[in-house]
């Protein structure tokens, strides 16, 4: 039904009276071989959980930063099997860190739902975040994920009504991904009060941890969100560090540095 490592990791952060830090980077970025190093920098910097993105040709929920990374990855020839291989590399080196795959639905559909669940589990993955698979369309996937011990994290949005939140959280496992703002991924100067209200409304429906993503890019924002959420999810800010760096190694160092700052942030609730 769920993934024990993910549940334990989030429970441990809660026991320390802090929010968890969840970092995102796409596979294939900056290169197929380099992606595992980039994710390792997230872990070395102090991320509790990592999400590895499956780059997609049509990332409708992503802003310009992650679109650019996805384009680089796809032009570099990244394949679904490479994404799974990156997950395998990361989990082998870091057996205590839960690794989720974040992917648009069509690549999973094309790979085969049961086959994808089995191969993700075999690679040591802890579960999936599927931002364009609504709960109404998810029964077959949920069965496949449950069979493999994978968590399925659903996204809720400020526009989600209370009765719908209950439907979504009843089906999700691991944690609930609360979108802080109405919009696509990307850093923002303000993360907004919408998030706090959404977290409260979501908590009223579930015992699952509620983690907040979209827009967070620095330690101050991380601390703000950590004050009311169980986890803080950061993606575009890491991607931007790698895009801005003079070399891949400089990019990984910048990711490690930013992760360490954010890890401080989530401990200042």
């Amino acid at each position: 039904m769920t993934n024990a490592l993910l549940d334990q990791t989030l429970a441990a952060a809660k026991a320390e009276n802090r929010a968890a830090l969840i970092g995102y980077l796409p596979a294939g970025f900056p290169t197929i071989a380099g992606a595992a190093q980039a994710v390792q920098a997230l872990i070395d910097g102090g991320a509790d959980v990592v999400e590895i993105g499956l780059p997609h040709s049509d990332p409708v929920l992503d802003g310009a930063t992650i679109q650019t990374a996805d384009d680089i990855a796809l032009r570099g020839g990244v394949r679904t099997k490479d994404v799974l291989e990156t997950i395998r590399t990361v989990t082998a080196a870091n057996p205590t860190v839960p690794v989720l795959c974040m992917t648009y639905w069509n690549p999973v559909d094309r790979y085969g739902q049961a086959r994808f669940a089995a191969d993700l589990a075999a690679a040591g993955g802890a579960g999936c975040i599927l931002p364009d698979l609504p709960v109404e369309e998810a029964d077959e996937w949920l069965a496949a994920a449950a069979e493999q011990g994978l968590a399925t994290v659903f996204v809720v949005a400020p526009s989600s009504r209370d009765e719908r939140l209950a439907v979504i959280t009843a089906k999700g496992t691991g944690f609930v991904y609360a979108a802080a703002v109405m919009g696509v991924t990307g850093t923002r100067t303000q993360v907004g009060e919408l998030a706090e209200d959404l977290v409260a409304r979501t908590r009223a429906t579930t015992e699952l941890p509620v983690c907040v993503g979209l827009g967070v890019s620095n330690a101050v924002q991380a601390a703000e969100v950590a004050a009311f959420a169980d986890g803080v999810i950061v993606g575009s800010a890491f991607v931007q560090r790698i895009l801005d760096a003079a070399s891949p190694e400089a990019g990984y160092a910048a990711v490690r540095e930013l992760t360490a700052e954010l890890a401080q942030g989530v401990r200042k609730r």
Partner: protein
Amino acid sequence: MSDVTSVPDARGYFGAFGGRFIPEALVAAVEQVADEYEKAKADPAFAAELNTLLKDYTGRPSPLSDVRRFSAEAGGARILLKREDLNHTGSHKINNVLGQALLTRRMGKTRLIAETGAGQHGVATATAAALFGMDCTIYMGEVDTQRQALNVARMRMLGAEVVPVKSGSRTLKDAINEAFRDWVANVDSTHYLFGTVAGPHPFPMMVRDFHRVIGQEARAQVLERTGKLPDAVVACVGGGSNAMGVFYDFIPDADVRLVGIEAAGEGVETPRHAATLTKGDPGVLHGSRTYVLQDEDGQTIESHSISAGLDYPGVGPEHAYLKDSGRAEYRPCTDADAMNALRLLSRTEGIIPAIESSHALAGALELGRELGPDAVILVNLSGRGDKDMHTAAQYFGLLDDDATSDDQTDAAGGAK
């Protein structure tokens, strides 16, 4: 055939196709559209206002034209054109746009956004925004803003903002992606006036319903003109809105062949085509399960067509259903065959068709030769070709070299 016309089901499925694959942030907005559309359908005032607009603003009913000189090239089969090119704004797109604009007003929203390929849907949306006093932003692939520059000017003249989309293949697919991103961020004020029979439920059904008038009129017109139903109905298919519109009321007429013509670009044996139903596989794109041009990892393959309006790697889910059920058939037509049909209709009938619609004309020529001189073929002439004169001029070499160099001199500030 009752099962074919009773789709979609409550979840938006046409058999195995359709559904609603959207981010949670859009669920409330899409449900609002579905609810409001159901209420509007039950409201006689909505139908009355829409019908008045279709008559007095659009100019419906559109005529049915016998094209005898053109038909001579089709083995003598009698070809009848449903003249959606004569609608206000120059294509069928206005039918759906006026319906959704009325719906937008009912929902209390004040801003319209839309994607456009050839620019016809963008022009129609900008037109409705002007008519209803709404703000309007149109997303158009950068490649398409260049090949359909006249329509960019028309949209801006009408007061719309036109955003050239530079991501991905810089064509229709990417314009849709960008419109979805805008909608997620501005959903409180904004309706995404989706322009084809694709996307999440209820769009495939609703857009079909708003275009259904094409087939309703045409069926009665053909019966009156010829005393019988046509042997075949032919329409071009990109997303598939004009084809669903003209096909729908013929679906129960089992003896009427429904033939959709897809853009084969440089040929379906090459990688440069947009023949989604011919060469694609089932998958999920832009909110519904349908046929998609995709690689073995589920990444969308960039399509190609000389026609911006057919240059799309997906297709409406109801077409996927009609294909798999066998009720409709889908054939490819190359750029070259479409352009030849464009020239032929221009020279034989004095009607310059859109490049999109020229695919249907080419399909009708082929079908006419197969069916023989007794056949009656209804073709949906979905749009007019004024917007395509830049492409046609380049393709056929219609402009003198002198004219080109004069233009360059002018652009350089009249050097001499």
